[in-house]
């Protein structure tokens, strides 16, 4: 069923966001590899921990544009995330099963790209059915935690009275960040190397969908949230060399969402595996017996 293309508004409960917290640099998380097996992709299991992280979304402070505050990510359970982005070959199996929209991008050893959040969501649902496990897109926090040193803080100085300073600073930062490669064709898996957590190709030339919706929050003078934050789940946070907000049905963000700014070169994704609940474990057991 095709939903209205514009806003899907969801009301969130008021959440108190802490102001900036001074944190020491977080060491790389302890992690272990989980090898690929049948339909299950190669995974990395990250130990629980914390990370200082700048919140995603739009903020005003005392009625004026403000920079997003820092918060502490607390990952309380092991985070299991795919070692690399979903490849063209992986995605093709979903297409062949009739559960995903066809695309010709990617290959056995290259990430599938030009896929929308809806495509990624459909793939996650299919993979969950196939394996009896629960896969989904990471939240922005989970992505940042797994990205570790490759997560890019988007913070910029904000002058409430001069909106242009922030636009110029962001433009400057994004222009300098853009990788020096002449073209943005997706590279073979592993081409951008592993981060300290063992994940491949984080912040390469593929930006990855997260499940986090675009949220606009009003803060008062002290930095506490006032009123109700407004979430637009028709727009999701995309992470890579920089953070972007992209409408959920967009497959190719290269033309950019706005008149100016540096858009993601490619849209792809990787998934996290949720810990087994009793029901999902039972399903998996039943599937295993049947096959």
């Amino acid at each position: 069923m095709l939903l209205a293309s514009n806003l899907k508004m969801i009301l969130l409960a008021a959440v108190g966001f802490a102001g900036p917290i001074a944190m020491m640099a977080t060491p790389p998380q302890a992690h272990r590899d989980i090898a690929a097996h049948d339909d299950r992709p190669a995974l990395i299991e990250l130990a629980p921990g914390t990370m200082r992280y700048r919140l995603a979304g739009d903020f005003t402070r005392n009625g004026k544009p403000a920079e997003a505050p820092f918060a502490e990510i607390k990952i309380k359970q092991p985070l299991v995330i795919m070692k690399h982005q979903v490849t063209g070959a992986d995605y093709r199996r979903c297409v062949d099963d009739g559960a995903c929209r066809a695309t010709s991008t990617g290959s056995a050893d290259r990430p599938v790209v030009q896929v929308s959040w809806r495509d990624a969501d459909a793939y996650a649902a299919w993979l969950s059915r196939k394996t009896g496990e629960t896969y989904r897109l990471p939240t922005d926090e989970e992505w940042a935690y797994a990205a570790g040193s490759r997560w890019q803080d988007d913070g910029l100085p904000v002058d409430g009275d001069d909106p242009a300073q922030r636009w110029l600073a962001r433009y400057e930062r994004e222009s300098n960040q853009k990788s020096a490669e002449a073209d943005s064709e997706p590279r073979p898996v592993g081409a951008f190397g592993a981060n300290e957590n063992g994940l491949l190709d984080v912040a390469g030339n593929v930006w990855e969908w997260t499940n986090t919706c675009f949220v606009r929050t009003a803060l008062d003078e002290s930095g506490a949230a006032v009123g109700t934050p407004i979430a637009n789940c028709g727009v999701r946070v995309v992470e890579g060399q920089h953070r972007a907000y992209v409408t959920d049905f967009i497959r190719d963000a290269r033309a950019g969402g706005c008149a100016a700014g540096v858009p993601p070169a490619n849209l792809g994704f990787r998934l996290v595996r949720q810990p087994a609940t009793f029901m999902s474990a039972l399903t998996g057991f039943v599937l295993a017996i049947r096959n």
Partner: protein
Amino acid sequence: MLNRRHAMMGAAVAALVLATPALAQSPDLKLPRQKIELVAPPFVHPHEQATKQTPKIIEFRMEIVEKEIVIDEQGTKFQAMTFNGSMPGPMMVVHQGDYVELTLVNPETNTMPHNIDFHAATGALGGGALTLINPGEQVVLRWKADRTGTFVYHCAPEGSMIPWHVVSGMHGTVMVLPREGLKDGAGKALRYDRIYYIGEHDLYVPRDEKGKYKTYETVGESYADTMETMRKLIPTHVVFNGKVGALTGKNAMTANVGETVLIVHSQANRDSRPHLIGGHGDHVWETGKFANKPETDLETWFIRGGSAGAALYTFKQPGIYAYVNHNLIEAVELGAAAHFKVDGKWNDDLMTQVKAPGPIPPKVQGALQPLVKAN
């Protein structure tokens, strides 16, 4: 298949036909000479605006370069033909009454004959009939800049070669300034602090059965497919300065609040309608000819294919501006967009966000409905 021998034989015949005018003697002009080093676009070589100097012979030299370039972020390759290695070719600036003396060089590494047609010049197909050169040859042409304005120049060898060379990148611009400099409609002097030259190209890159862009070993091999694609009149790319995004990011154009910028825009083949998003054209010579009074306070102006126009604007707000061909499909999807980065102080009087985006007040039409708690 087009090869070098065919091209040269065609050129030899043409050269025989055109041999006669070369015997006519040019009068001794007894004018001072000045040599100018051309600069790659979007920049323009240093020049006076208003000048107290008397007419001169201005010497330029351009080398024709056939080369493979990359025209977009996906790495699409394109066999280009260029004046001086850039797309568009460099901009030349002289004053009314000056003579342009161009040495045009076609190095032997090229595969095709080329020439040049100056829209500002008079006679001989703009100079095209007197400048056809084979690889390994060069020619010197002199013409009088007797009228003011911005004018296109382009390669125009003969027949189907003309559109093909132009949409392969072979065009540039000449600006002939009035000796008193630019003036507004009331005759008051206008001065620019910076000048940017934006040459727009419509490109027609052939695709294979799967829809992927095709690449070719030589420019000659691309000819047949490109002709078929261009005859459908729908470009695959519309680019500023030779590549999608060429004037964005690190290569965005810059200015400061309070500075006056002259933006010269040329399109040698196809119509365009430039618009500065967030700004205006304070004084615009849409047709590009300075003897006409400029239009003022324009939102969007029209560059007819085969011409160059000029727009003057004094920046009033800092921030990022996009300068686009305002067929927005061509701007966003095909590449016809550039950026300006402008530093300075924000002017709240011109624009201010009175209230930041926030929830519609409750009970007003369209306000969020509170979630019903599930029990």
